[in-house]
């Protein structure tokens, strides 16, 4: 890690060679536990036979040296027992997990568990243990907890944690706001409950249940100890997830795939031809292949209603339970993939009703992968040149001070992928690093260049690249890049020889590619 960071720093920012590796090069993104700081508040010991401790060991792959893994770390949380001896936790809790176990808070009895279903966008995971006598005994004293989706603003709820000796401690919160917000990964917003209070922390925890009257109303999403703001992943999203899992095939949360602009600005309204009190927001972007596009929505339409709910000039609708709420929840939270959707828009002054079927854009449908868990990053190594497909986590691993040059260019492509998608690219293949080999002599300061062609073949993803390396002419690979120096040449025999030397060599490379 240290090596790659140093190399990349030099490559990407053309920065000064420094005598020591500065502290700041440690990847900025750390998965912070939800609760980290304690504060003296009244606590109350309670009883529950619906909660189990969950211990997980997590080990992500290295983003910069993708053939290896980072060091493993432990995570603890409090899972909620649901019907069928399943245990609900946040997806964050089990991301990149190598080992998961359930533990009874009272007796300390443990059994291993596996992930049955996980949704990283909705930040939810369902665990189960293989049926056995031990498993039966483990769950015998436990009772499934029901999910309560009826929470309203002003309701009082409790966050539960385990104390030092396994006792349950509750902190009371009052739900102050309901809104939509992005959870832990890149993507559109989900429903969130927000509350203000001090939450006492007993142990670092990745999952804490929020209950009311013995029923589950949500899981703790984040706690900002400075502002004492707690956000809760709410029961309606949990219920949606569980229903989706229950039917046997998990589809995930649908989205419309569009971007809207509020129309509060009177001059803008007049420009758009909107009457002063008329509802509606401007559709400023319609994503290719998304539900909205398939239903016939166009950029420039004024969205006035979804499924019978009027959309106001902020883009909110009136939710019967929560009041004004972002229209995205109408699709995300209240509908399922495959559901029919009815959208009313104003186009050229006339109201048009569009109908379509809701779909979900899968992470793999993006040019730049929005998140990556449980799998290693795809890569191809050829004669010391390391090629990868661009992903958000890769870009996020660079600190602010390393944002210049190639990283800035790649980040912009991630934010504006349209042009590259139109070229027919499925993924953005780039030269991420050059290991010092004889065949890559002269190229070792490169990194961050987008690959256009190899041996004359257009590169749409890494599979294309691996394939193109099989068809060199005149024993030289020709690699065409989008950026300076635009062309690289690699001797085919020497590259193969270096490949063999890299396998099991100083860089501990076990495989020259990962394409699964």
């Amino acid at each position, binding site marked *: 890690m240290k090596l790659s960071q140093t190399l990349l720093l030099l490559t990407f920012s*053309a*920065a*000064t060679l420094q005598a020591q590796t500065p502290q700041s090069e440690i990847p900025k993104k750390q998965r912070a536990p939800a609760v980290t700081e304690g504060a003296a508040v009244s606590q109350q010991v309670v009883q529950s036979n619906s909660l189990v401790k969950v211990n997980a060991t997590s080990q992500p792959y290295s983003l910069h040296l993708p053939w290896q893994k980072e060091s493993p770390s432990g995570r603890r949380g409090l899972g909620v027992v649901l019907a069928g001896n399943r245990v609900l936790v946040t997806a964050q809790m089990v991301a990149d997990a190598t080992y998961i176990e359930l533990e009874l808070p009272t007796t300390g009895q443990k059994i291993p568990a596996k992930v049955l279903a996980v949704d990283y966008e909705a930040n939810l995971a369902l665990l189960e243990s293989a049926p056995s006598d031990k498993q039966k005994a483990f769950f015998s004293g436990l009772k499934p907890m029901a999910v309560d989706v009826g929470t309203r603003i002003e309701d009082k709820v409790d966050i539960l944690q385990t104390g030092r000796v396994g006792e349950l401690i509750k902190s009371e919160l009052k739900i102050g706001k309901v809104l939509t917000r992005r959870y832990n990964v890149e993507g559109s917003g989900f429903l969130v409950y927000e509350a203000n209070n001090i939450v006492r922390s007993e142990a670092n925890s990745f999952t804490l249940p929020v209950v009311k009257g013995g029923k589950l109303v949500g899981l703790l999403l984040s706690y900002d100890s400075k502002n004492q703001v707690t956000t809760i992943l709410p029961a309606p999203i949990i219920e949606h997830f569980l229903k989706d899992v229950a039917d046997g095939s998990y589809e995930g949360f649908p989205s419309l795939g569009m*971007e809207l*602009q509020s129309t*509060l*600005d009177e*001059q*803008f309204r*007049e*420009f758009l031809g909107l009457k002063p009190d008329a509802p509606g927001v*401007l559709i*400023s*972007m319609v994503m290719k292949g998304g539900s909205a596009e398939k239903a016939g929505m166009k950029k420039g339409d004024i969205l006035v209603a979804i499924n019978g709910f009027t959309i106001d000039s902020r883009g909110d609708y009136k939710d019967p339970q929560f009041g004004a709420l972002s229209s995205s929840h109408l699709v995300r939270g209240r509908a399922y993939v495959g559901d029919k959707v009815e959208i009313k828009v104003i186009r050229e002054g006339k109201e048009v009703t569009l109908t379509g079927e809701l779909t979900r854009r899968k992470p793999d449908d993006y040019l730049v992968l929005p998140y990556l868990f449980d799998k290693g990053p795809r890569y191809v190594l050829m004669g010391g040149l390391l090629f990868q497909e661009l992903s958000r986590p890769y870009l996020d691993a660079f600190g602010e001070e390393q944002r*210049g*040059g190639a990283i*800035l*260019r790649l*980040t*912009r492509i991630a*934010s*504006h992928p349209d042009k590259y998608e139109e070229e027919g690219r499925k993924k953005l293949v780039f030269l991420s690093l050059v290991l010092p080999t004889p*065949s*890559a*002599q*002269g*190229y070792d300061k490169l990194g961050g260049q987008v690959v256009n062609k190899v041996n004359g073949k257009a590169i749409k993803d890494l599979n294309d690249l691996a394939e193109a390396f099989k068809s060199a002419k*005149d024993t*030289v*690979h*020709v690699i065409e890049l989008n*950026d*300076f*120096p*635009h*062309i*690289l*040449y*690699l*001797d085919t025999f*020497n590259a193969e020889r270096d490949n063999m030397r890299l396998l099991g060599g100083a860089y501990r490379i076990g495989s020259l590619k990962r394409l699964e």
Partner: protein
Amino acid sequence: MNTRPLLSLLALALLPSALCAQPAKAPPPAAQGIDVASGAWEGIVNIDVSVLVPDYREPWNAGQPSGGSGTGFLIGKNRFLTNAHVVSNATRILIRTTNDPEPHPAKIVHIAHDCDLALIEAEDGSHFDKLKPLEFGGIPQLNTEVIAIGYPIGGDRISVTRGVVSRIDFRPYSHTSVDSHLAIQVDAAINPGNSGGPVMQEGKVVGVAFQGFSGRVAQNVGYMIPVPVIKRFLKDIEDGRYDHYVDLAASDFPIENPAQAKALGTGNDGVGVMVGDVEPQGSVGDLLKIGDVILSIDENPVMNNGLVRFEGELMDMNEIVERKFAGDTIKLKYMRDGKKLEATVTLKRFDPYVRLGAQYNQRPRYIVNAGLVFQPLDRNLMDAHQMRDDTVNYVFDNFLTDKLYVERPEPVVLTNVLPDEVNTWITPYAHSIVDEINGVKIKTLKDVQTALAKKDKPFIEIVLLEKNRPLVLKRELAEAAHKRIMQTYNIQEDSYLGDE
């Protein structure tokens, strides 16, 4: 021109704010004492400058008054050479000699920011008539002794430090931060205030002290502008005008890889460097292509790392171009697809990169309309506004690399929205690149003026680059608000578009 400074170089004009005096080292025993009273160094003068630093945040304001001090030296009748950075943005220049406290007002005759040199003259030069101008030497050899003379921090009178020539190399000049020329590194102490002063060997000037590193980065590293760069400047201004450097405007990539050498068809003699990028609007924009191999410039063979042996030293091949002037030609031998070709190239200045460097002696250009402030994108603007917007940063950073200047020679930024009832909804859109106004594509600041003058529609419609909604102002409201905003925010003129 494709390189950027790797280390934060410190220009060495003495600014009052930076009076952190590092005590000078004890000088090594001088080879020969000099009697200052003899007047031998009377031509080496202190230059005291009052400065007005333009305000790129409030471009309608005068700017920040400041001051500084440097060194200069007489090179002809009432002609003093100094660094451009000593006299940049000056409102008043005073010359003092070491034996006479009388200040003599002076003015800039020629200033060349790209090589950090300036020529100034006293308004009344008669006082200096009897002084002997300093003479120029050549490029000194490595490890030969030189002395730096000037008025650095640590006292008021003239100072001498001694050292040897440490290195001769092509280096970034920190004054603009985008220009690189030949520079000579010396280990004589060169401190703030030495800027513009002569570095001498055997009684002749071999360079002008101009930059160094801060003590925290490196020790005993000072740089001087060598005689070839100085002579080029003096020759350039002979016609009464400074025409700037000319540039190949192509980036070279070394041929170190055997497969690369084989594919490009270069032999084993180590001659030829690959063309890695070509600026379409540069001198060789119509001639060279990426993947060509430059073999020689003016019959000087170019090595695989882009160096040439020139005047006995290994130097960047650009040094040959550096010595030439706009309209001069070079003979270029190159290879394409294994075929050797030859061409004569007429050299010209490559303008687009000027805005990537710091600019001086310029009043900031701007247009204010209904509280919306439009300014052209350049380094001064980026530095003043601390732009965080990804699109603005992308356009600035990749102005050359992605050839953005071809479509938009002077990108215009909406830098600020001065809040008022009329624009309150669009204040969050400050720090955006302006793509179109009223249907007119914005390629330069002047286009903004032209576009705003179009009054055929009831709305002013501003399309921003990579922002998904247009900014819309109702024309009658905007016009009514304009005067009010100008008054409230104390803006005298609603635009400054330059001198033309």
